[in-house]
């Protein structure tokens, strides 16, 4: 059994969770139908009335929302309350088109921070912990979410924001941080920097890390756990649904419990929109059950994953989602083959490389080309050209086996690929330039 922030709800029997969902959904559907014209129009088009939604199972009658809807309705079209009731906005980086601006009432902020508090307690956090938050603060949800959660738990919160790694390390060592929250790529970078400064993993006081906001693999988890001497936990969320904390990992580290009293999850077939049974792989769809200002219903996340209700040893009863296996919009189609950056990362870690890489896709003579720049680890450096060429060849072979197409692998100098302190820029697709 584990530690809970809100044990009565986190370990509630299944029937009680369903009862909460039924009640909240009925209320929410009225709220949205009355206050969000954009969604009311979608419901009217589909011929669905609030009265048709009586239980959570009726949710499948409702229309989906997509990123395109968010663009169309930007900025106020999906707002569910008066602006005077809103206290905050957060926003996405806007890398895939127009920014998403999400609105929050104080109630929305509280429920979001509670979700983050559950995540912190689940990794062993108490009011005796020192929680170093090195997600970006500002419009990005990472910093504010974990910061709020850390306050709720009563941790001593270090609002570091991202970047300035020397300062991060200085505070970590001087103030004895026990929990660290950041993107997994930044955690890996901090691990490397600690080693460079001559610190061993046991020299820091960290016990756990909460890492999210970008895809990472099991291999990357192992490497971070080793370099920082911690247990590394996943956290999931998106600005559209509030931010990190929609789901989080417990001590089992086998998937993330979705906070089902606030967010209802479905898995659908991305092509047909049909709801798939538990255990099947498909696109994750979220309904915010009690958010006021930005109450998205049936929002299609584009994340591909699996849900399971298998009993968890931590005692939580909330459904678990797998780590997203890829995003439908992350997927690269190269020479007709589907390639996910996470596959490339898996090969690199298996072959003993750092997960610092950049994928460059281009089109030459009407054929797609795939080039992968990979950083050489300092200990892999050789004075012989043949050694390094052999390493490139071996990597190309391993990549071909995993991906089904052959990339060109280029080893580059250690630390020469620019580290982003928020989300890593992993893919450069130059094909668009030619279209």
């Amino acid at each position, binding site marked *: 059994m584990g530690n809970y922030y809100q044990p009565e709800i986190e370990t509630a029997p299944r029937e009680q969770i369903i009862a909460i969902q039924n009640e909240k959904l009925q209320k929410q559907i009225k709220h949205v139908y009355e206050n969000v014209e954009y969604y009311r129009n979608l419901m009217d088009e589909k011929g669905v009335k609030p009265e048709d939604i009586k239980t959570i199972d009726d949710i499948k009658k409702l229309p989906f929302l997509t990123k395109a809807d968010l663009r169309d309705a930007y900025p106020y079209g999906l707002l569910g309350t008066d602006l005077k009731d809103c206290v905050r906005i957060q926003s996405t980086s806007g890398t895939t088109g127009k920014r998403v601006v999400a609105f929050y009432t104080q109630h929305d902020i509280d429920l979001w921070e509670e979700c983050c508090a559950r995540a912190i307690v689940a990794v062993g956090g108490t009011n005796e912990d020192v929680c170093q938050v090195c997600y970006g603060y500002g419009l990005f949800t990472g910093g504010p979410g974990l910061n709020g959660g850390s306050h709720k738990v009563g941790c001593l919160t270090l609002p570091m924001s991202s970047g300035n790694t020397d300062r991060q390390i200085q505070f970590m060592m001087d103030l004895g941080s026990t929990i660290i929250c950041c993107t997994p790529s930044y955690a890996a970078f901090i691990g490397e920097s600690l080693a460079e400064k001559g610190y061993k993993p046991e020299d820091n006081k960290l016990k756990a890390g909460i890492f999210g906001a970008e895809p990472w693999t099991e291999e990357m988890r192992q490497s971070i756990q080793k370099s920082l001497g911690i247990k590394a936990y996943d956290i999931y969320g998106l600005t559209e649904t509030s931010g990190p904390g929609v789901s989080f990992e417990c001590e089992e580290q086998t998937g993330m419990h979705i906070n089902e009293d606030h967010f209802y999850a479905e898995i659908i077939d991305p092509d047909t929109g049909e709801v798939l049974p538990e255990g099947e792989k498909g696109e994750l769809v979220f309904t915010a059950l009690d958010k006021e200002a930005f109450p998205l219903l049936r929002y299609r996340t584009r994340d591909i994953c699996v849900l399971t209700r298998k009993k968890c040893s931590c005692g939580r009863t909330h459904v678990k989602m797998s780590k997203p296996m890829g995003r439908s919009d992350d997927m690269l189609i190269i020479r007709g083959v589907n390639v996910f950056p996470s596959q490339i990362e898996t090969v690199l870690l298996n072959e003993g490389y750092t997960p610092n890489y950049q994928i460059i896709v281009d089109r030459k003579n009407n054929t797609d080309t795939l080039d992968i720049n990979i950083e*050489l680890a*300092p200990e892999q*450096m*050789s*004075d*012989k*050209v043949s050694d*390094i*060429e052999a390493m*490139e060849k071996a990597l190309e072979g391993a990549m071909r086996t995993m991906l089904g197409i052959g990339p060109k692998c*280029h*080893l*580059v*100098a*250690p*630390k*020469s690929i620019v580290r982003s302190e928020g989300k890593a820029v992993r893919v450069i697709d130059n094909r668009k330039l030619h279209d």
Partner: protein
Amino acid sequence: MAIKQLSVFLENKQGQLSEAVKTIAEAGIDIRALSIGESRDFGILRLIVSDTNKAKAVLGDTICKTTDVIAVKMDDNAGALCEVLKVFDEAKINVEYSYAFTSKDLGAYVVFRVDDVATAEKVLLEKGVKLIVKDDI
């Protein structure tokens, strides 16, 4: 009596070599010998310098590697190199790469990267071949 060679990983891009050499010059380090192994994507700059540790520090630890190599003084006559290579052959020592240099103080010399430095040194000294040692640099 092997000497230290510094290998520096450089991307195969314009300006990388001059940047590295400039860094070394600005640190007041003398380059005694130099060669480049090149490939599609990268070059490996191999250097014998007056202060290996300092050069490593200014170029950046992560892109450098030090290797033991043997530097043999060459008499200026036909067949001098053949003699040395014959010694290696007899001792079954494989030469990975080598490069030659001359200087006013040291005369002509050839740097050898071999697969077995200890044996190479031993057999060369047995044959009375003159080696360049750390203090010469």
